[in-house]
C-alpha cells in the first residue's frame, strides 16, 4: 500500500501545476498575408535599427494603435484591423521623424476588428475547454478516492 502514495501525490501535483495554464488560456496562431511590413532606412542604405515608431489607425490620430522599436534590420510590421489610411511615424535617435501613410483596402469579411478570433483557434478551444474540465474533475475525484481508501486501510 505504501508504494501507491508517491503516485497519488505526483498525480495531484500534476493537476495543480497544469490547471493555472489552462485558466489563463494564452493561445496563439500564425496568420500569413495580413501584415504590412515597413522598412526604415537612411539614404545611404543603413537601416534604422531598434528605432522607436508609432502606428496610428485611421480612426484615432492621437493614441497610437501600436508602438515599439524597429528590429535589427529596420523593419516594423502591423496588422491593419480596418481599411483606411494608416499613419506610420518613425523617430530616429537624432530626433528626426519620418512619416508615411499606408492606404489599406481590406477585402470583405477580413475587415473585422482585432477582437475577432481566428476561426481555427476558436473551434479548437471550443472542443478543448469541456474535455480539459472533465479531465480535471475526474483527476481530483480519483485523487480523493485514493486518499480515502488509503486512510481506510
Amino acid at each position, binding site marked *: 500500500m505504501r508504494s501507491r502514495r508517491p503516485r497519488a501525490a505526483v498525480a495531484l501535483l500534476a493537476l495543480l501545476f497544469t490547471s493555472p495554464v489552462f485558466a489563463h488560456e494564452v493561445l496563439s496562431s500564425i496568420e500569413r*498575408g495580413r*501584415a*504590412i*511590413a*515597413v*522598412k*526604415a*532606412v*537612411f*539614404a*545611404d542604405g*543603413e537601416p*534604422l*535599427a*531598434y*528605432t*522607436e515608431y508609432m502606428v496610428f489607425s485611421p480612426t484615432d490620430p492621437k493614441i497610437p494603435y501600436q508602438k515599439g*522599436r524597429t528590429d*535589427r534590420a529596420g523593419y516594423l510590421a502591423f496588422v491593419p484591423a480596418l481599411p483606411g*489610411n494608416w499613419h*506610420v511615424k*518613425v523617430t*530616429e*535617435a*537624432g*530626433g*528626426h521623424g*519620418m*512619416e*508615411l*501613410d*499606408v*492606404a*489599406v*483596402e*481590406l*477585402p470583405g469579411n*477580413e475587415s473585422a476588428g482585432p477582437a475577432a478570433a481566428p476561426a481555427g483557434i476558436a473551434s479548437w478551444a471550443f472542443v478543448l475547454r469541456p474535455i480539459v474540465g472533465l479531465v480535471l474533475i475526474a483527476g481530483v475525484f480519483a485523487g480523493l478516492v485514493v486518499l480515502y481508501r488509503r486512510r481506510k486501510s
Partner: protein
Amino acid sequence: MTTRIAWPAILLVVLTFSGQALAHDFWLERQGGALVLRYGHRGGDMLPLDAAKMRSLVCRKEHRASEDLLRAAVISANQLSLVATCTAASAFLDGGFYSLTPDGEKNLPKSKVPDAVKAWRSRQYAKWIDVRSSLSTEVQGDEFEIVPVTDLAKVKVGDKATFRILLDRKPISGAVLSVGHKPLGETDDRGEVRVKIRAADVESVSATFRRPVKSPDADSEVFEASLTFEVAR
C-alpha cells in the same frame, strides 16, 4: 508620402529617410557681438548642450596666434556664447562612445553594454568663418574640417561653391556633405565636393565620415563637422 496597399500584395513598404545616421546639428554662428555655439536642429528645436563634453573653443584672428577661449565662454542651458572678435573659430565636442541596443542608443562603449549590436565613437566639430578674412580658406587644424576652396566672399545664394574635407589635415574621399540633413554630395579623390548655396543669409554645411576601427569599445569612429558663414549679398 502615401502608399496604397491592396490585398493580396507584397506587403512591404520602404520608408527612406533622406538624412544619414547622424547626431544632432552642432554649429557655431555669430549673434550680435558674440559667437554662439548651439546643438539641436538648426532652424528648429535647440537641445541642451552638454558642456562637460566640450573640449575646445578656438578663436583665430589675422596675424595672431590662435587662442582656446572655452573657459571664457558663458554656458547656458541650450548654448554656449563667447564675446570675442574672431575672424574664424572652431569648437570640438567629444560625444564619447555610443552603443546601439534593442532598447535604443546608450552613451557607453560597447565593452560596457552587454546587449550592444554595434558601437561608434562620436566626435563633432563646428567652425565659423568671416568670409572676408584671409583665414576663411586656410586650414584651421581641426581633426575633421571643412575648408572652402571657393572664395565665399564672392558667392551668393544660388551660386555653386567647392569645399574640401580633411581628416587629420589630409583630403578624404567618400565624406558626405549635407545641408539641413539633406546629403548633397560626396567628396572625390581630392576630398572635394561642389554644392549650391541655398541660404540667402547664413549658410551651414555639414560633413560626415565613418571610419571602421578594431576596438573592444567601438566598431567605427564617426566624424562630423559643420561650417557656418554669412552669405554675400
